[in-house]
């Protein structure tokens, strides 16, 4: 598996992580569970229950806790196991804790940093307000090829500039919007793109749909290269 560099990686669009759901993703070969309580921010954990190794992305959410599907162990958003159904009267030891990664939601994207000693700051393109989700696409190519494709793509007259490792920003005056593109290394052969937009050109659903379609063309173009 890849090293875990100290940087924030976009792993999903906010709206894809529904309240009360747990969802699988892979980042640099590492399996993660992205889950959200009924209310509140998304959490990013290692996709493994510390009890018997079951993937927590198969889990269910009840009363603000992520419950493992295998034995129903209930974890608080901080990672601590608060409930073991086999022993309902037992207060679980503090040592039972899911492996929690830092997570933040900004610009409509869920970000995480898998580094063991994370210090990097979140990507900053100004005000968090007003960003609209366009869509996520997954490209069957390694991240280097996808970065190249993003850089050479025609973004409505604008060009993508990599403002951080794995984060590209586009400003298109013609289209009347800015785009933020989070590039997620999935594994050696697959890469995700999570795209949000802001500006007049992203205000109506029809315009956003046109951009979503354009992202499919970008994916097809990158995959068509040998």
């Amino acid at each position, binding site marked *: 598996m890849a090293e875990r560099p100290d940087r924030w990686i976009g792993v999903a669009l906010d709206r894809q992580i529904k309240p009360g759901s747990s969802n699988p993703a892979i980042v640099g070969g590492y399996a993660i569970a992205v889950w959200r309580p009924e209310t509140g921010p998304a959490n990013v954990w290692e996709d493994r229950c*510390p009890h018997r*190794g079951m*993937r927590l992305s198969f889990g269910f959410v009840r009363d603000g806790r992520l419950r493992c599907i*295998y034995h129903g162990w209930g974890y608080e958003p901080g990672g601590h196991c608060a409930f073991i159904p*086999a022993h309902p009267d037992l207060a679980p030891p503090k040592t039972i804790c899911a492996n929690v990664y830092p997570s933040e939601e900004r610009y409509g994207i869920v970000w995480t940093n898998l580094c063991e000693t994370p210090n990097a700051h979140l990507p900053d393109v100004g005000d968090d307000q007003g960003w609209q989700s366009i869509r996520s696409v997954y490209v069957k190519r390694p991240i280097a090829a996808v970065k190249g494709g993003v850089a050479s793509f025609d973004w409505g007259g604008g060009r993508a500039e990599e403002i951080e490792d794995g984060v590209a920003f586009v400003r298109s005056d013609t289209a009347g919007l800015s785009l933020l593109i989070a590039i997620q290394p999935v594994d050696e052969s697959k890469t995700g793109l999570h795209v949000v937009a802001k500006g007049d050109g992203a205000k109506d659903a029809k315009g956003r749909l046109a951009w979503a379609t354009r992202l499919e063309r970008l994916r097809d173009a990158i995959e068509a290269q040998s």
Partner: protein
Amino acid sequence: MAVTTDRAALNEWVACGWPEKIAPGGGYRTVLLGQEIEVHRIAANSFEAFERNDRGELGRKLPVQIKYCCIFTTLGEPTRPLPKIPEFEEPDRRITACGSVGVHTSPFRIIENFLDMAHFSFVHTDILGAPERTEVLAYKTEHRKDVDEIWAVDCQFYQPAASKASKGGQMTHYAYRVMSPFSVMLYKNVFDDPARNDAICLFVQPVGETECLAHMPLALIDRESALTSIVDFQQTIFAQDRVILENQRPALLPLDPTIELPTRADASSIAFRRWLKAKNFQFGVYEKKAA
């Protein structure tokens, strides 16, 4: 797939198929601990097994035993006989071959899942466990040194539909028995009769370290249920378990108790892992890589 070099694994008897599934004169190929083998039924009650190499040539002849509806063989030198399961000799029992299911995980994950009561309410909801009755009461584990078996006794769990013969919920009494690292069985009292029990076996054929065939012979007290409905019941349960088994990480079983944290209900799993560690099992076991 390379053949394992783990003597502890090679020296076990392993179930590798069903005699009833082969016509006299017929045969089949399968894989055991990474070694391809070929099994022949040369007459009604006579079976032979051979190793088969990459060029398709038959090599060394392997010992064969037919017992408990299964064909057993070994690639090594077993240090003990097949386990004694007298229930299969009792005349009023339904001896049922419930078929084999392929599972991509370590054989020991399958054994542990079979020993586990705490998952009933979540994985076998409204059948082997109820969502509102999840408690696992204290039970005892024993290492029976005379036969080198791990037992879990005095187990009980509330079950809405304990078997095909059930007509309602009951507190089911269980005893679990690990006869070898690849074979396990349970006794559970039949519906409304604490004096008699069903005997359910799970013989795991380790194809490779994370690929198995699970064979399920039963010796039941059930005169009424149709054979197909008994098989359906067991296969439904196993299909629910398979979703879990193929999504545990790592697939290999960690023996180091700091990698996966147990609780009291896992007493049988703890005993099983210690027993494997004492046997110095390498095959199917997770070793934490040095940093």
